[in-house]
């Protein structure tokens, strides 16, 4: 598959610093990260003919194109559903390249999420929007279920009930992420590992979630340059070939509140993504060297492992025990520190880490040259990627 002329690859990654107060506009962050990603690839704005971002991003493709001095754009797209868009931006870019609709597409996400609008607070306008989303929000916001943590806690509670998972099982994810972040100079929690007892004693936010089950809030931007694997071969960095990319939504799907027509202790939309990823890459979970699993809240990391087939349903607590997801374990996860440890850039920083793992440049490099998997936001229509060397 990687030999096909239609195969796409990630040729460049770029980012701003990750902070709690960037002091700059989101558009400037987007422009900086995008330029940095092009520099990394050894490309210039004039090479760019496609831009993709999130529907939640406040910077239109044309605004970013103006700042970069990009002339003609042949492809532009926005992917919906919050953090579920992350790998979806690269998926759209790869599809455009495979179809011949674009040659160099930059995917970006820029947000002042800590110094600007904080996702962790109640979005008081959420039920006023005259859209299907606004109507969906009528079933939980007025009743008080009105933060991302609360929506995840509802599923986590059921997961604990059905499978006997404990808060300490969720804590293992936080401990692994923070251990990895402690070695990453770009991580907000650089040199600040935590213990399980730190996790257990952190304050309750929405039972059963504690503070250290919740990712941080961050300012920053990340950009990813996608081009054909063929062109990527001639560029500055080793290509991270997109072995497969996929989006997924499940039956009875809502955004963060798919509570009504399914087993709550599951993430069917991630199951859709996983099956597509493995089938189209011709791989199985056993072939995977490491993963970057979206970690806005710890419980969904466990449920993703089950949906992606790394373990059976309800078996994730056993699967992750004893450091299995830490560097040196059987499936190291989130070696950059994840969104709990490095920064919350809506999953885009996780794609950058997967690329570093393919290049061999991660601060927590996992040995070998096997493929890696990256996922996007959980609890929402989502997406994923499998990357490997050429």
């Amino acid at each position: 598959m990687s030999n096909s002329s239609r195969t796409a690859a990630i040729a460049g990654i770029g980012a701003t610093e990750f902070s709690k107060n960037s002091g700059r506009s989101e558009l400037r962050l987007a422009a900086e990260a995008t330029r940095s990603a092009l520099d990394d690839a050894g490309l210039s704005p004039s090479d760019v003919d496609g831009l993709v971002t999130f529907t939640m991003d406040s910077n239109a493709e044309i605004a970013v194109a103006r700042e970069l001095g990009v002339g003609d754009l042949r492809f532009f797209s926005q992917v919906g559903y919050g953090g579920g868009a992350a790998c979806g931006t690269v998926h759209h870019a790869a599809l455009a390249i495979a179809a011949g609709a674009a040659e160099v597409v930059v995917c970006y996400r820029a947000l002042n999420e800590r110094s600007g609008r904080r996702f962790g607070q109640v979005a008081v306008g959420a039920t006023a929007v005259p859209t299907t989303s606004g109507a969906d929000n009528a079933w939980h916001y007025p009743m008080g279920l009105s933060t991302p943590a609360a929506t995840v806690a509802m599923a986590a509670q059921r997961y604990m009930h059905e499978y006997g998972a404990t808060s300490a099982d969720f804590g293992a994810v936080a401990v692994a992420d923070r251990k990895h972040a402690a070695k990453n100079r770009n991580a907000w929690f650089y040199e600040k590992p935590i213990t399980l007892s730190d996790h257990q004693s952190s304050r309750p936010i929405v039972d059963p979630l504690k503070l250290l089950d919740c990712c941080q809030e961050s300012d920053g931007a990340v950009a990813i340059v996608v081009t054909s694997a063929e062109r990527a071969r001639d560029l500055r960095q080793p290509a991270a070939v997109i072995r497969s990319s996929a989006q997924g939504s499940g039956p009875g799907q809502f955004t963060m509140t798919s509570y009504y027509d399914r087993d709550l202790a599951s993430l069917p939309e991630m199951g859709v993504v996983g099956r597509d990823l493995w089938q189209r890459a011709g791989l199985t979970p056993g072939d995977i060297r490491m993963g970057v699993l979206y970690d806005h809240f710890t419980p969904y990391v466990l449920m993703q492992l089950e949906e992606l087939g790394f373990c059976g349903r309800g078996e994730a607590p056993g699967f992750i025990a004893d450091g299995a997801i830490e560097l040196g374990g059987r499936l190291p996860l989130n070696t950059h520190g994840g969104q709990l440890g490095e920064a919350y850039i809506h999953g885009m920083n996780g794609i950058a880490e997967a690329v570093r793992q393919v290049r061999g440049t991660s601060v927590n490099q996992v040995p070998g040259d096997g493929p890696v998997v990256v996922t996007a936001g959980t609890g929402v229509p989502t997406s994923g990627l499998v990357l490997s060397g050429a």
Partner: protein
Amino acid sequence: MDPILEAAEKVKAAGECSPRAGRDPVNLPLINNWVEAIGDANPAWTASDGVAPPAMIQAWTMPGLGGGRVDDDPLGIMTEVLDSAGFTSVVATNCDQVYYRYLRHGERLTVRASLVDVVGPKKTGLGEGWFVTTRSTWYSGDEAVATMDFRILKFKPPEPGAERPAAPAGAGGQVMRPLVTPDTAFFWDGTRQGELRVQKCGSCGALRHPPGPMCPKCGTPADGGYTVASGKGTVYSYVVHRHPPVPGKKLPLVIALVELEEASEGQRCRIMGELRGVKPEDVTIGMAVHADYDRIDDDVTLPAWRPAPPGEPLPGMVIKASTTFIVSSALATRDFQDVHHDRDLALAKGSKDIFVNILTTTGLVQRFAAGWAGPDAVFKSIKIRLGAPCYAGDTLAFSGHAEPAGDGSGEWEITVRGDCFLGAHVTGTVRVSVPGRNS
């Protein structure tokens, strides 16, 4: 000794005050007026050889228009004492009636009151005040037929501009209002009327919540059809929200996703709502809950949940407290206080509008309990605690459950709650014996 307590001791020592006689004997016309106003359909009340509704007891000896208290009335004396000490405002808090037997047409009643106790000063949500409890005993000849312990709070109104207690965490701001669409309006119309409506496909019968414009099972466009859920369900999952603040909510907040009893294999049916009346640590997945209704304003009532009470649930009862209802029921209970019929005077006294009088509330509690206990039930007592006023235009929604009294009497104890816009208007218990339904 505190002069207030000193005065109280004197009144107490005086025992029962002089009797006040009812204007008329127990009679069918007045009963008919009462039954019409309260809406109690029990045929026992209106039969030519019937008995008087027990909850009507106070009406027989009300002073009437222009009437007043007897000179040695203990509540009159204590009111003067407390007024002159600056405790000028009053609110009734409890009304506990015990019925020794039912009254027949033609019986002439007198009432005598005594002071039970005066307790204070107490800091209350309204201000510092004293609780005064009196006991009225009704006599038919020399025979005591009923008593009523009546408690009021006499309090000092807070100084204008005085600091109000801090609002609880998270209480700031308004509750977020749901977006109502043509596809979902029936649901919100239902909660406003105390009903949990679940969309039902007119073609294949599939239940669906949240509702939508087209049946996902068979493709039939929605025709507005729904089923009214029983309101019973079990907690499927829940959270305890502690941080950050949520507009219009008090933290910690329990929110439960409840599987309705209408759900079946292959037919899930879940509704989310705040779970109230339970400590967060006592909530469990699988616990039985009943629907509750969180009225935000005239337009929006949110579905909510509370733990299923023990015993048998009572069929719900909703009363529209229109101006006509408030006035006619106040007059039918022979209560001529202006705040129950004269809007101008009610407003002048700082009230938002005229409001339902206590004698009517007692009558409604009897009617609600009879809805479960049936026409042959014999009421032994009605003991209520009074809460938020129910103003004209408001709605009173009653809920309750019945349990065996468990004291060998074979009687039932019915727990009652009536909610209006401002919260619980009345809570209390009713004791009844129900022929053929020994507890």
